[in-house]
């Protein structure tokens, strides 16, 4: 495996994926370095999952070039997949079988000998804090536990690159934080992570670098902080007025901010100093039903770039 220790772990140039007439991915290019944690942020239908399936060496690109672990997935698909871990959007676990057996049966797909399977299953059950549930049916686990088991399963072959599609969708906050913490640990141990998400907090927490996808294209790329600094102001003032729809609020708000976004349920003012802006609004006699000052986030970057919110 000395052919992959240098150079990017994954390189995509002008990747396109079409399903009949529908173009799910419209020529995306990106490079992911070894040890990095790289994100794909975008709403549902942005082409994230199609991109994930191509970089998992499962689905074949319609056009473009792709190199995974220094190899060509068209020629060496099985070999590449043997060195990847994939956490799909759905858990795809065998619900009728025990937690341990789910790991060991899956490990068999990688041709791992039985004694090694047993040992690794124990290690990973420990790592994902499922040791005391090892002999329970998967059906009896909570959503967060199932998700952790899916991650443990993806680690059975000790992958160099772990690909996670929407890892925490549908989990409660506590389960999400536990999962994030486990992913940090993997990253510290040198595993490269690729994560898709439509949660901006997840992207900010987990990703060193990310691309923002919309309608099958990449609309921005960079570190979360960089993207925010580049595409948004330091702070945001969220105003709510006591009206049916905020579209019809007729106030000279643009005088108080660098940029104004009107959403159905609130109005966002992009400013440097939120508290100062609030005072100025009050002085001008503009009194909203509620007001909130917060730091800019990737949500604002997305709104700026696409004119839409991430989660709707």
């Amino acid at each position: 495996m000395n052919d992959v220790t240098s150079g990017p772990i994954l390189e995509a140039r002008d990747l396109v994926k079409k399903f009949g007439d529908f173009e799910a991915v419209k020529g995306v290019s990106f490079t992911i370095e070894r040890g990095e944690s790289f994100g794909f942020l975008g709403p549902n239908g942005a082409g994230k999952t199609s991109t994930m399936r191509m970089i998992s060496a499962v689905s074949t690109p319609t056009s473009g070039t792709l190199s995974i672990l220094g190899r060509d997935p068209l020629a060496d698909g099985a070999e590449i997949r043997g060195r990847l871990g994939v956490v799909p959007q759905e858990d795809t676990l065998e619900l009728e079988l025990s937690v341990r057996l789910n790991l060991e049966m899956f490990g068999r797909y990688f041709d791992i000998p039985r004694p090694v399977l047993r040992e690794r299953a124990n290690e990973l059950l420990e790592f994902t804090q499922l040791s005391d549930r090892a002999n329970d049916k998967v059906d009896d686990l909570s959503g967060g536990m199932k998700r952790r088991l899916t991650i443990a399963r993806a680690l059975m072959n000790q992958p160099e690159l772990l690909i996670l599609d929407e890892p925490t969708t549908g989990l409660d906050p506590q389960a999400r934080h536990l999962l994030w913490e486990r992913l940090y640990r993997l990253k510290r141990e040198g595993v490269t992570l690729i994560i898709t998400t439509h949660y901006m907090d997840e992207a900010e927490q987990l990703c060193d670098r990310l691309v923002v996808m919309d309608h099958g294209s990449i609309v921005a790329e960079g570190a979360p902080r960089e993207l925010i600094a580049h595409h948004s102001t330091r702070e945001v003032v969220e105003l709510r007025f006591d009206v049916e729809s905020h579209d019809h609020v007729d106030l000279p708000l643009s005088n108080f901010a660098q940029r104004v976004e009107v959403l159905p349920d609130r109005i966002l003012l992009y400013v440097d100093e939120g508290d100062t802006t609030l005072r100025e609004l009050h002085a001008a006699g503009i009194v909203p039903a509620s007001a909130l000052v917060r730091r800019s986030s990737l949500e604002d970057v997305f709104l700026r770039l696409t004119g839409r919110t991430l989660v709707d």
Partner: protein
Amino acid sequence: MSLSPQVKAGAPAWLRSWHYHATYYAQTWRGSVASNILFPIFFLASLGVGVGHLVSAHTGLVQGQTYLHFIAPSILATTAMQLGEGESMWPVLAAVKWIRSYHAAAATPLEPEDILYGKLSWVVTRAFVTGVVYTIVIGSFGALESWWSLTLPFIGALIALAFSAPLVAFAARSQSDAPFAVIYRFGFVPMFLFSATFYPISAYPGYLRPLVQLVPLYHGVALARAAAYGNASIGPVLCHVAVLTVMAALGIAWGRRTMRRRLVD
């Protein structure tokens, strides 16, 4: 988690998929014992012994056999068909759509073809083992008259594969299970009843006989009888084997396409 060099057990990819099915079955086999082993024995006892009593009182022997001996091979054939059918529709749709376990497998070094061959070889294994058990059972009813009977488990395996392969291919491209009930009611139930299973083909009027001979299960039943009695001529036997083999081969070719399209497109 250190990146140690991978140790390999050396199993071919399709066998790893077979192993997955076998492990799964080892955990969940209890429910299927009734339908695969006990029901055929009940059938044999009630029809062979009960109805057989009536038949022998009225018509004597059927094709030179007691009624029990007449239907014993056909129950092996229909059991093999049902096993092939039961393994191939709902379980495969679950694996590609509901549980998505084949998608999970496709993200490993396995190719869609390996997943297909693993599935079909597992069906063949189950049918063969069921055939062995069943051959012993009908042997103990005294219904075996030839050393050719020892081929019955292989015949059962071939029948199961001939039905399983096209159904797996079909299920792999299905979006819902609605067609399965139709296939079952209007395909399998009539085949089970009308493939000269419970009475000889000579019971049909002459113009219907060629029609019955077009039914795939008819060839399975006829082949099983040929093996049990050891009195068939080579021509018809080869024809029965050929029909079942062609069904299996076409089903596999179709399944390679539908599995690939479903799993890696």
